[in-house]
């Protein structure tokens, strides 16, 4: 797995962050306050998680008055969209398993 994907995967590995990101995907732009009210964690914690998502390119912030609005950046998922690299890894492993099986099989 290329290192460039690591930040993306790691930022989505945390269930709370994933829930925040999914909510932004589902419901569109939200303020930190909106997100906090349904997240079950404190506002500073939500802000911290949003910072991680922002650094991974998964969300964008927009300042308006005293409020900061966050929105999901689906384009950041582009590296994951390339199914060919995923399937390549999948099939290489399956070929290994197939070869192992052939060694064990009777003629």
């Amino acid at each position, binding site marked *: *797995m290329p290192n460039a994907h*690591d930040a993306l*995967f790691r930022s*989505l*590995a945390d269930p709370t962050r*994933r829930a925040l990101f*999914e909510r932004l*995907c*589902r419901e569109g732009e939200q303020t930190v306050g909106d997100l906090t009210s349904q997240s079950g964690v404190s506002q500073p914690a939500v802000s911290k998680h949003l910072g991680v998502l922002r650094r991974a390119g998964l969300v964008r912030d927009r300042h308006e008055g005293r409020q900061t609005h966050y929105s999901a950046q*689906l384009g950041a*998922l582009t590296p*994951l*969209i390339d*199914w*060919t690299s*995923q*399937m*390549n890894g999948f*099939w*290489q492993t*399956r*070929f290994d*398993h*197939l*070869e*192992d*099986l*052939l060694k064990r*099989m009777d*003629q």
Partner: protein
Amino acid sequence: MSDPATETRSVVIEREMPFPPEKIWRALTQPHLIEEWLMKNDFKPQVDHRFRLSADWGGVDCRVMAVEPNKTLAYTWEAMGLESVVTWTLTPASTGTHLRMEQVGFRPDQERAYQGAQFGWQRFLGNLDEVLARLD
């Protein structure tokens, strides 16, 4: 601009196997053997037979497209929004068999799927766990 409807992508894996084609054919077409290297399944080597490959993370819906014993096997492969065709080709070689797998997918379907329309974020993100397990 190219016509997006005809735009495809493919994955090709080729390997020399030190075994005769007949033996590899058995591993590719007998359900209890397929299960050992690929996934649980209800495969039958009959054109138009629909079968499902199933795993912990979900499954793949397939339909047999071509069966030419010891030479060619092709089936559709639909999973997580990806519509594709997997074709196996067995060619006798001096050391055994040259085994080739080509998976061809249709880009527009794949893209539409990943945009979430048919796919659902939950399902998508659920698969991340598996990817993560391989990261370190």
